[in-house]
């Protein structure tokens, strides 16, 4: 900005220009935050996700020490089954075994989020490794990894889940393994494509010309550029993993009673949907809200990291 050459002498205009620095001088982080703030949907998504995370952490603690919540998530009260939401002492009512719905919901959110984020973290690390090797090393490493990616991607997830649940027994570990075993391929595809483009960019050639080793080029110059697209994908994948866990728990392959995951809670209520629908409606809505929030956040992040898509 060349204020000195400007014919303006009004001091207030100059002062204003100083307090509002020109567009180009903002740091990328500040610019990203500005873009996120402008995107109402993404901001709401972020807020909802943060709220869920807090509840989820409480849920994880309560899963290990049920004493911290007013009601134990697993304690049955067969005299007080099917209490409607708002009943005294049970804000969200009780289920078919008289267990407090609110406590189950809090613990359920903790478990579902742990699965969603855990699966995504595992698949992201594997995908990052495999994708960057495949993208960086054309020739046989790429051929082999790409073939494995394609085989994995072509495999029906539920088939893997059934097979693993059969081998390890149904439970959350089997589900985490099954989903991660498929989802890493999504990340690997993405990272491979990004690395392949970046590998031939001038700044990489420049780094190579100055004698920087392969590993360092990959780590310092290429991988940082893949963080943004990987994060965007991660937010969608967390949502997809939460839904997948719920689906597997629903058909009985996932969380085993009395562990309450959101999908298992919907399954609990499926036989009572005619008269006491809230047993499955409450966890159902809980899933819809977090998934919509994660998708909104993903859309916001995508717009933020890809300026071409902004203002769309």
């Amino acid at each position, binding site marked *: 900005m060349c204020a000195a050459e400007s014919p303006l002498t009004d001091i207030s205009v100059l002062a204003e220009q100083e307090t509002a620095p020109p567009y180009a001088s903002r740091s990328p982080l500040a610019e990203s935050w500005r873009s996120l703030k402008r995107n109402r949907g993404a901001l709401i998504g972020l807020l909802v996700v943060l709220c869920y995370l807090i509840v989820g952490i409480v849920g994880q603690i309560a899963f290990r020490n049920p004493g911290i919540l007013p009601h134990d998530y697993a304690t049955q009260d067969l005299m007080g089954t099917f209490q409607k939401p708002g009943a005294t002492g049970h804000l969200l009512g009780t289920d078919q075994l008289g267990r407090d719905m609110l406590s189950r919901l809090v613990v359920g959110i903790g478990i579902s989020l742990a699965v969603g984020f855990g699966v995504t973290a595992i698949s992201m690390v594997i995908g990052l490794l495999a994708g960057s090797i495949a993208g960086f090393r054309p020739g046989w490493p790429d051929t082999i990894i790409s073939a494995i990616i394609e085989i994995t*991607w*072509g495999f*029906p*997830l539920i088939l893997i889940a059934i097979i693993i649940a*059969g081998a390890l027994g149904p439970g959350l570990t089997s589900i985490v393994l099954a989903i991660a075993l498929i989802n890493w391929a999504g990340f690997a595809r993405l990272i491979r494509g990004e690395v392949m483009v970046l590998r031939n960019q001038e700044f990489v050639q420049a780094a190579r010309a100055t004698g920087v080793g392969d590993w360092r080029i990959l780590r310092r110059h290429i991988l940082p550029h893949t963080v943004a697209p990987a994060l965007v994908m991660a937010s969608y994948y967390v949502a997809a993993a939460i839904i997948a866990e719920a689906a597997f728990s629903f058909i009985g392959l996932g969380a085993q009673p009395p562990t309450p995951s959101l999908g298992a809670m919907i399954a609990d209520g499926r036989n009572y949907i005619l008269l006491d629908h809230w047993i499955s409606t409450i966890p*159902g809505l809980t899933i819809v809200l977090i998934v919509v929030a994660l*998708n909104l956040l993903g859309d916001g992040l995508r717009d933020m990291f890809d300026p071409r898509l902004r203002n769309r």
Partner: protein
Amino acid sequence: MLPFLARRTVRMFFILLIASIVVFYSLRFAPGDPTGAALNPLALEEVREAYRHRLGLDRPVYQQYFTFLGNLVRGDLGVSIINGERISNLLWSYGKNSLILGLSAVVLTYGIGIPLGLLAAARRNTWIDHLTSTFAAVLMGIPNFWLALLLVYLFSSELRWLPSSGSGGWKYLVMPAIVLAAEGIAVTARMMRSAMLEQLGQDFVRTHRAKGLSEWTVVGRRVARTALIPVISLAGLRFGWLIGYALVVETIFRWPGIGYLLVDSVLRRDYPVAQFFSLVLVFVVVLSNLFADILYGLADPRVRV
């Protein structure tokens, strides 16, 4: 084109071969075996041994695998261990049902998703656009098995319009098809909308408008054609998901399709049925990926292979 097809066909067979090994071994290393479902629970261990021997299950797994592969290559699909049904008959009867369900879902997905995305893009930032986006966001968020429960509650229990599960006339098809298509509709609408918006800013659109073409011709035909490319390439990828969902949806609605049969046969350790139909699913997914690549080339001459 021809070398491309040849290369892809070779790779497809390679994938199927690996998939067959994975499926074969994991099924046999999973706990339990067909005697659990085929024999009386009180059957003596000697009876179980004899049964396993008769089926050849006591041979080393690799020998069993080569027998299976040999029979498959000769076109002998074998019979179900549990009820002796010929697998070729099962393929026909269950495959037909899956095909009906899958095609209905595909028609619903693209028949609703594409026009919805087109409309949202053409009427950008109006209430139509906002309504479509909200609808898509919620539809993507609803787990399909819960949507199934809600639909059964509404249409079967409350309104009594549709049967809750099973198969028969078209009425049995409505709910499974909607549930199977739901997420696809949302994804397609979003994809179509953003692809349309990307194209609407291009120079060729201004040229078409300057030529005096009607807005409908420009948006509905010229722009929509180029915007279909990402939707098509996504279609191939989505097929894998669709098949995964089909297993859940068919199980919930007891729709007698390949997904239902597969889940059932895996749970009952009906090895020949489970093996064959797993491979059928993998084959369909790989084939659809190939088709997606070919269609991609047809829709966009720039990437023609």
